[in-house]
């Protein structure tokens, strides 16, 4: 029964479309408020990294990418990190975690941190299947979608121009590429 539930929930992944992030940091605010009961972006499981150089604004969300072979779990010296049976997200066992920071070092995205006051390295638990950052994201930059949809959606997005081109060609009767 538990096994079934896990498979169902794990079909969903949190996706980030950095071109659609406007840098409002609502995700940070609500994550920290929901998990830590404070308005405290430093304690958020998702962070926005911004660059404003030369008048050009770029903002990118950073959060746990839910690696299949998670380095954080592999490196943990006390086996404190384990996958949630419901969502598959890696969770931290507060009784085992020694806040050594090994998981922070190995995370390829820098997506985690150590809460020194609590003595624990918390991580994104996907809010048990309904991520609050996704719920509040005003642009749709953050989405929680079925894993098997992700790769085909990316392919379609990348090929949109090509599709547009072929669509025009398909309805042009003669001299198919004359309009180019």
């Amino acid at each position: 029964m538990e096994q079934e539930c896990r498979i169902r929930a794990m079909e969903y992944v949190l996706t980030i479309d950095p071109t659609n992030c406007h840098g409002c940091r609502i995700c940070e605010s609500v994550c920290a408020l929901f998990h830590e009961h404070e308005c405290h972006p430093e304690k958020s499981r998702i962070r926005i990294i911004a660059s404003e150089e030369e008048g050009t604004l770029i903002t990118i969300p950073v959060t746990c990418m839910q690696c299949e072979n998670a380095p954080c779990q592999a490196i943990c010296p006390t086996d404190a990190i384990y996958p949630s049976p419901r969502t598959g997200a890696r969770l931290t066992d507060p009784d085992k975690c020694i806040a050594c920071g090994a998981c922070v070092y190995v995370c390829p995205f820098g997506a985690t941190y150590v809460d020194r006051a609590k003595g624990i390295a918390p991580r994104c638990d996907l809010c048990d299947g309904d991520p609050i950052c996704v719920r509040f994201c005003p642009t749709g930059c953050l989405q929680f979608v079925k894993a098997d949809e992700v790769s085909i959606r990316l392919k379609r997005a990348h090929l949109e121009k090509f599709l547009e081109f072929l669509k025009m060609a398909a309805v042009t009767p003669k001299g198919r590429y004359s309009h180019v």
Partner: protein
Amino acid sequence: MSDLYAGSILLIDLSTKQVSKEPTSSFSRQFLGGRGINGKLLYDRVPPEVDALDPQSLLLFGTGPLSGTACPGSSRIDVMAKSPMTGLIGFASIGGHAAAELKFAGYDHIAITGKADQPVYISVNNDEVQIKDASSIWGKDTYTAQTLLRQELGDPELKVLCIGPAGENVVRYATVQSGLGHGAGRTGTGAVMGSKKLKAIAIRGTKGLKLANAGEFLAKSEEVRSKLLQNRTALEWKNYGTARITDESLTHAGQLLVANFQRSAWDREKDVSPYAFQKKHLLRKAGCFGCPLQCMDVYHLPGIGGGVVSCMLYFGMPWATMLTDMDIWYESAILCQRQGIDVVSLSDMLAWAMELYQRGIITTKDTDGIPMEWGSGKAILEMSHKIVHREGFGDVLADGPVLAAQRIGRGSQEFAMHVKGLPLTNYPYNSSAGYALSAAVSPRGDTQKGSPLPELVAGWENLYAGEAATAAEKAQEAPTDPYKGRAATLIEAQDNVALADCLGICKWLTTEFAEGMPSGWWAELYSAGTGLSTSPEAMLEAIKRVIDLERAYDCREGLTREQDRIPKRFLNTVVSEGPRKGGLVEEDKLEGLKSEYYALRDWDVATGIPTRQTLERRGLRDVADDLERRHRLPKAPDEPA
């Protein structure tokens, strides 16, 4: 008690290099926060004997209790000082990410006095506050200075409040800027910062804010957010920023006056359409901390560079100066941000110079050889640079309309379009009693920060209905009595804007987007965050206290009913062209509105000064005593004259 508030007011004396703290709670019960606490500090510590640009003058940055929280729009800092433009209270709100960062560092307010010997900047890193040498960034524009500061301090996460070269050169309408596109535009707080030789405040805060009831606060924030995203005006902001609405509600409705407010119609409106520019060049949207709308527009034009534009920047320059080249308009908008200068004041000063040139009052002999011709991009860009660097004629214009008119003489003051020394935002004061009253009685000498006046709303209504062409007709539909109810409407708008400014949220939330949002929500959010019980009535009472104190400040400086006036150009002349043709504001009727306004505010109608009775009722007995000592208090009715 420090829930929701960061807890401290940071006091910095740049002359003695002393840094100290005061608890915010000494003021927050009476004045809420932001503009309210700023006003109290300014009243107590900057008396009439201190000039705006004296070292003893105070520069105030005030967040509100909701700044930095998960409540939508929680991004604002009220920047306040005695204004070097008006000599009265000066304040402007700035968005972006600095407010949140300041609160996370542990401070609700920063109050800066004194003057450094050499250019300095202040580094605030949680409890560590340092005054540092700014020689490496002095002279740099605001975009560059922020990048250099992040490099120098080795922290790319810093949020910065800074001035540009205009502030350094104490151009009297210089701004304080933050990030890209965020500025405290009006009243010249950047000049005060520059007079203290303070280039920047670099802030890093990692503490966060505690809440009395986090669950309730989050639930309430979600309620505000979902209501906001159902509001059609808010959605307009989200989808089109302030570009399309500028076309629809201002341009098409004939709300913008042309050529230094000389004319009411312009046949080039299509050429200066912000929406057309946006459609052509928009890269993406951007905005402030905690806001789901993101109403600012990100551009990058070859040869000019990147930048973020919104609101006033769109319609300031083209209409005032008849500039039709939108590439030059964009260049001037980025210039305003990089150099740190108020676009409204700059547009008006250039437009004034152009009118003086048109009338032959000044010639190229006065303007260092630059022909100040209407619409001339060369004149606009070259003279702007001269103003920023106080070179030649630019040095004259850099002092604002009152001092500049004294230096030019020759009757030039008649054509300077300002109230109490502050150049006017472009609105139809000649045909709308609401705008005219708003400008006349404003404490800072400008309209009351975009109050939702019926003219503006009429334009929007049409936009939603998709009937842009009839916007003009609708706006023209004169109510039976164009003066009726205007004083009460203005008071409501002023109170709502002040509420937002005190809470540290964007004013749109309590004005244009407030439809369907009960005013009680703000009290509920406040209670959930602080754990203190409050009511909408108690909050409104605090707001009225703040506004009476601001008025008392101005009156202590010598302001009376007499100075609550708008330029003669707008009065007693029937509008002869454009969509608002036939409009008229009569001087004696405007005087009547002023009386009504003072009476509704419980101020003395003859002088426009708050009475002792009113001040005492608001808990401002000390202010009443102070005004009395200075012979500024109006005589009580039963007192012999």
